[in-house]
């Protein structure tokens, strides 16, 4: 039996979902978005009852993972763990029963403010599974925890929930991967992931979104970073027809550090809609955002980022950079890099560029005997790797790079030139 508070929260969320208006044209939070993509009427919840061995077998992540959890349509089909004592790592459905009070303490405690409040309510109303990871104070988990989500069956909806907490001085790295069981079935994913990094802790969260090109995904990510804690949130997007990602960092203590990183390689008519918010609540905190998009074919990206420095959050150090590499003459990049500064003695800057690979760069590589297509791909790959290398963990970088290269392999010779 799920605890009463959870049942109440779900009922309240359902009421919110019904009362909240759907996003409309003209909403600032959805500026440049394709609103028609938000018609989810054909999607339903679908439990997975089939044979999971293939998906378990294909859920190969990094070697030496500290724990692995595999879900198909939010059903846990496999798990293994060699986590240190005291670490709680449970499917959310179990955590709600075994650790109801602990989960309640952290479960969706902030409203969704970047536009998807309605979908966040839908998630909360129907969420049934996901991962609850709690690393108690002082515990350092050396190897990554990896989570695999497989979306299966046409029109099915999954609502994975990821709740990661590092206690004081603790440390963990989590890699979460979203994939489809086949390359046709159109699925809808509404994922919520909350990262809570308590004092002096380190929390790295790496997401790979490689769903098939008929699927849609909304991911709502938030990090709470306390005094002297460091959180890294990384997202690689190569899949889905339409992907909306909302990412917030709340810096609540001095010397808190938040890194918000993303690499996207959209192609065909994929649309990636990225909204970010760096919220400096405490003075003396640091945040650094770097989003890089390489746009192929008819793809579109929307980047809207805001550095928000609260009154009194002096000595804030905040940076935001979005770079778009335009790889076709039919792609479209929209950038809205914003700042709202209400404090003094801050160092803030943002930059956004959109450009194609320069002829000089191509020429240089061709002069070394590399053909033009290979040269373009090498440069685009290097462009993305600059972000991936910030993960500072070889196995994780290799894992992410593998997905990046799979995407590039499908794009080979596709560049319009």
């Amino acid at each position: 039996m799920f605890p009463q508070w959870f049942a109440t929260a779900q009922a309240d969320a359902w009421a919110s979902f019904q009362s909240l208006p759907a996003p409309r044209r003209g909403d600032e939070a959805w500026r440049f978005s394709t609103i028609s993509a938000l018609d989810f009427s054909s999607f339903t919840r679908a439990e997975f009852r089939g044979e999971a061995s293939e998906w378990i077998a294909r859920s190969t992540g990094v070697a030496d993972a500290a724990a692995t959890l595999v879900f198909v349509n939010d059903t846990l089909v496999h798990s293994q763990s060699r986590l240190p004592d005291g670490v709680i790592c449970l499917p959310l459905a179990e955590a709600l029963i075994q650790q109801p009070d602990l989960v309640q303490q952290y479960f969706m405690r902030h409203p969704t403010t970047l536009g998807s409040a309605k979908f966040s309510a839908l998630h909360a109303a129907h969420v049934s599974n996901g991962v609850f990871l709690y690393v108690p104070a002082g515990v350092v988990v050396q190897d990554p925890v990896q989570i695999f989500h497989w979306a299966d069956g046409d029109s099915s909806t999954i609502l994975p929930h990821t709740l990661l907490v590092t206690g004081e001085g603790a440390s963990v790295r989590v890699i979460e991967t979203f994939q489809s069981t086949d390359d046709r079935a159109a699925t809808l994913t509404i994922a919520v992931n909350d990262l809570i990094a308590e004092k002096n802790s380190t929390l790295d969260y790496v997401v790979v979104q490689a769903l098939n090109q008929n699927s849609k995904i909304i991911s709502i990510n938030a990090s709470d970073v306390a005094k002297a804690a460091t959180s890294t949130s990384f997202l690689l997007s190569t899949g889905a027809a339409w992907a909306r990602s909302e990412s917030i960092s709340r810096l609540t203590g001095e010397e808190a550090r938040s890194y918000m990183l993303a690499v996207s390689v959209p192609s065909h008519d994929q649309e990636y809609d990225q909204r970010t918010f760096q919220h400096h609540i405490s003075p003396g905190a640091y945040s650094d955002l770097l989003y890089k998009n390489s746009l192929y074919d008819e793809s579109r990206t929307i980047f809207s980022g805001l550095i928000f420095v609260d009154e009194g959050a002096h000595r804030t150090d905040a940076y935001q950079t979005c770079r778009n590499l335009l790889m076709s003459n039919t792609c479209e990049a929209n950038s809205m890099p914003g700042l709202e500064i209400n404090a003094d003695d801050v160092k803030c800057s943002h930059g956004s560029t959109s450009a194609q690979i320069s002829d000089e760069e191509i020429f240089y590589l061709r002069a070394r005997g590399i053909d033009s297509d290979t040269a373009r791909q090498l440069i685009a790959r290097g462009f993305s790797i600059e972000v991936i290398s910030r993960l500072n963990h070889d196995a994780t970088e290799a894992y992410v790079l593998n997905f990046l290269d799979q995407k590039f392999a499908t794009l080979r010779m596709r560049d319009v030139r």
Partner: protein
Amino acid sequence: MSLDLLPETLDQETAEAVNIDRSIGDFTFPERNKFDAGRGLTEKTVDYICDVKNDPQWVREFRHRALKVFRDKPMPTNWATEDLNNINFDEIRYYLSDGEKPKRSWDDVPADVLETFERLGIPQQERAFLAGVEAQFDSEAAYSNVKEELTKQGVIFVNSTEGLKEHEEIFRPWFGKVIPTGDNKFSALNSAVFSGGSFIYIPKGVKLKQPLQAYFRINSESFGQFERTLIIADEGAEVMYMEGCTAPKFETATLHSAVVELVALKGAKIQYVTVQNWSSNVFNLVTKRGLAMEDAEVRWIDCNIGSRLTMKYPGVVMKGRRARGEVISIALANTGQHQDTGAKMIHAADETTSNVVSKSISVGTGRSTYRGQVHIPKHLKGCKNNTECDALLINAKSRTDTYPAITVKGNQHATQHEASVSQVSQEMLFYMMQRGISEGAAMSLAVNGFINDLVREFPMEYSVELKRLIDLEMEGSVG
């Protein structure tokens, strides 16, 4: 003492002649309006204005359509400040004039109006360095004159009322074309009740060596000024237009909502310079846009120091190949002020380039906002945009925001946007003070240094004045 040292080339007299500081503008004369449309805005108000101005039928229809658009459009508070809701459209007086036609000689201008502009230094400036002047007092121009040799070359410089009647064949095809009535709520408002403003036509190949100037003066309380300016530079023509403005500080809020349309035909160049120094209870909601045809250039050189709330995003639509658009913007927001400014760059032809450089200074609890839009659509080649916006915060409660939006389609273009926020560092202040410069003067030096490269873009006569105004604003900002 102004610490900013005058450039050696400019004599003291000229510097004083361009004196337009706000304290100097803070005076008023008793109203003696022959025509007063009363308070509030209805169809009757619009008809009253049409009747007084003896508008042609097409203008009357244009105004009525605009009124409807104004009513239908919501306040843009979904993205803009809620302070807009403090404008009481029912209390505003939409048309006031003494019924006099604009004079060609200052000698014919009524004594109180003449004294107003004398105190603001306009006739002196005209003698010193201007090719032509239009001076507007509430709803109508009191004085309008252009040097005789320019008239002979075919230059037209009249107020908008005269422009639409006497030069309909040039005026009408472009009027409302760069900025359609429905562009935004305030362009619609202006289209319904516009009065005054300039109509300028520079014939083919004529390059004006001296600037034309317009001066806008609000004299009456609760008044709304809605001037309408249309400048057309024919092929290869060049003109610089400068506008200044003041109002006394009334108890109630005043509204200024202008529409300015520029048309630069093939190879033409228009530079539009504004030093906005409205008193701090004026809502200044202005729509400004230029159209640049092949090889043409439109530059907005904009400085906002006054007003309670300014919302102004000068734009350039680059419609011809190799057209260029530029916005150079300085904003200073002191306590009680919100300077919400920016730029719109719409690329609509190949190889068009645009450049935006914006610097803002927030003092006390002042708030400065930059909003930008850059649009490069599909099927174009070789478009470039560069945007830089830098904000300087002076005090702990000062505020700044930046909201750019950049859309690029296709891979034949390059855009670059950079923004930064900084303070005058303690180390910089210590260094300057160690040389014996007081804290306030050091702050002024640092602020003037911050905008120095942009101030150079203003004509010399304005740049000296600008630095002085900024020194005035910086007084008392420290300590």
